[in-house]
């Protein structure tokens, strides 16, 4: 294992690293704040008061129920693709293909939604979900198998498959699934029975959020409370050791990629059945990559991912308000998000060093105290002899 791999894995995967430490919270919080400070330099550059801009960025999200709901609407698919990245990451794989797997799920969901939208809601929604899981799973299975059988880098294959999915989607909405009217490159609306129920009236918040929460809990339970999860994490933390212990590395890698892909596929399902109700070119772009950001920010734990995806959702909806309010290009959020990723990872890199320093300090203090205590007792003894 290279030094880099080891340090990353130490920072994330080592059983000890999951123990609650001040740094688990400190690193992400400081990173977010620092990213905002760096972003404010850009705002000053174009002559905008950063405080005013950030006021919009953050508090516009809480101004009414609709905006709060919008944050959660944005957070839902990010949480799901974040879970997808997390699951593979814990097995030592970099699944950069959340984007493509989400699109695969969306294509399947929209296809089934178009064909079965007249059936009772329970049936058609269930079928859409199942189709999305299978399609996303297949989109993860292929890189998984190529990795397992040929040793092809799952990183590059998943990146390539993102684009394959994008163009496949583009083809579907251009030709076979194009709307009956034929005007725009988009599909017809799926049957109304396939729409996900809304959680709050007059908002776009749909039951997909509940799906994301349930899956977060499920991923936590599977990864940390089942033998399967133990095996998957063992492969991630120490492949050689896992193999020595009789764990089939290939099978577990492929399985992890399938589950990871399926999780991202569900994001496609919630976007189609919950929000758009049809598929068009260029919908929900970058959600797969936002998921990676959420996972890294959340320390690759399901709970952390969920909280982080809400934060990213806030940044994204807040950005539009900021653009309207003070005329800051909304794309500044991409900058802030990129800085957050870099700072969190840099913070995690420094974490072992910082923790080591703390440890050394504590040891020094303990040694000093011990020395002093010994000296004191010696002093007593000497005094005793003198007397």
């Amino acid at each position, binding site marked *: 294992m*290279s*030094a*880099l*791999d080891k*340090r*990353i894995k130490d920072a994330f995967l080592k059983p000890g690293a999951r123990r609650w430490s001040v740094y688990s919270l400190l690193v992400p919080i400081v990173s977010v704040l620092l990213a905002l400070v760096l972003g404010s330099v*850009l705002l000053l*550059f*174009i002559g905008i008061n950063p405080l005013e801009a950030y006021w919009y960025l953050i508090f516009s999200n809480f101004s009414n129920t609709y905006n709060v709901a919008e944050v959660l609407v944005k957070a839902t698919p990010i949480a799901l693709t974040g879970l997808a990245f997390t699951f593979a990451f814990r097995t030592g794989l*970099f699944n*950069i293909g959340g984007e493509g797997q989400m699109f695969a799920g969306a294509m399947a969901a929209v296809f089934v939604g178009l064909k079965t939208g007249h059936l009772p809601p329970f049936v058609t929604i269930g079928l859409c979900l199942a189709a999305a899981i299978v399609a996303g799973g297949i989109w993860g299975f292929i890189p998984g198998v*190529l990795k397992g*059988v*040929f*040793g*092809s*880098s799952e*990183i*590059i*294959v998943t*990146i*390539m*498959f993102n*684009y*394959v999915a994008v*163009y*496949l989607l*583009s*083809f579907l909405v*251009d*030709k076979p699934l194009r709307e009956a009217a034929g005007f725009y490159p988009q599909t017809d609306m799926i049957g109304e029975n396939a729409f996900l129920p809304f959680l709050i009236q007059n908002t776009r918040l749909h039951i997909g959020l509940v799906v994301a929460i349930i899956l977060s809990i499920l991923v936590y339970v599977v990864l940390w409370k089942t033998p399967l999860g133990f095996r998957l994490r063992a492969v991630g933390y120490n492949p050689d050791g896992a193999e020595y212990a009789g764990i089939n590395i290939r099978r577990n890698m492929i399985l992890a990629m399938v589950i990871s892909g399926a999780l991202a596929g569900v994001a496609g399902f919630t976007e189609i059945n919950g929000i758009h109700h049809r598929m068009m070119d260029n919908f929900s772009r970058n959600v797969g*990559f936002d998921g*990676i*950001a959420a996972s*890294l920010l959340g320390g690759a734990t399901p709970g952390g991912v969920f909280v982080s995806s809400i934060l990213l959702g806030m940044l994204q909806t807040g950005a539009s308000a900021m653009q309207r309010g003070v005329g800051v*290009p909304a*794309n*500044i*959020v*991409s*900058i*802030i*998000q*990129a*800085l957050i*990723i*870099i700072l969190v*990872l*840099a913070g995690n*890199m420094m974490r072992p060093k910082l923790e080591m320093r703390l440890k050394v300090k504590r040891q020094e203090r303990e040694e000093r105290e011990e020395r002093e205590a010994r000296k004191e007792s010696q002093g007593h003894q000497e005094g005793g002899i003198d007397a």
Partner: protein
Amino acid sequence: MNDIMNAAFIVALLSAALRLSVPILFAALGGMFSERSGVVNIGLEGIMLTGAFAGVVGSYFTGSQWLGALVAMLSGIALAALFALITVKVQINQIVSGIAINLLAVGLTSFFFRALFGITTTPITVNAFSPVSLPGLSTLPFVGEVLFSQTALVYIAFLLVPVSWFILYKTSWGLSIRTVGEHPTAADTVGIPVNRVRTLCVLASGALAGLGGAFLSLGQFNMFVDNMISGRGFIAVAAVIFGRWNPKGILIASLIFGVADALQIRLQTAGIGIPYQFLLMFPYLLTVVALTGIVGKTVAPKALGKAYAK
């Protein structure tokens, strides 16, 4: 269709293919140096985008497309310097860093474009590169039109192929680069400064990818729009792999991908047979096939993706 129509179609197609392969070639040659030294640079996409933007800005303010290209290279180097800092020095994971760089570039270019030019509906027009006919050669039938009536950057790109080959295989620099990518510990033992070599290679990839981006904005579209690279940086990453990490292979890969791109543009208008989206997928699928090693072995530099800490 008669023969003359056919010949004209093929000349136009090949000429376009050559042009379309150029940005990929620039970025892929840069990516090759970075990867041969052991650093995966999937930030090429973002660096190209920055180059495309900076090229337009440079040309706009100086009135010279050459200075624009220079600014593009410098901006590519600047972004690559950040990438080198976080991957080589701080040693953050290279893939995630690349993603962050891409995201950063999307934000920075769109932010500064609006900051500089406001929200415009008409694209900013700048001085761009125009075709230079090489005297004598451009009048040759068929090849003259395809090969020798291109913009200056096209000639530069293709000249860079033998130059890169020479640097990589015939100079001590090249030997250092290859050693650092294959076996950093051995390189360190014989006194090659591993991380400095890597940093320089990443900077070179930034300069070349920046130039590749500038070719798009100053040599092809003559403007900047958000996200105008649209995957070409990743195609360059693919070309490095498909070209097996050497200049000749990368040249072939870029040309193949260029032909696919030129064909899909024509299919879109002609509307025959294969959906154009499948041609757009082609580079990515081809690269996946190359990665399986079924068709010949692809051997990546051994230390690729691994940071070096003493």
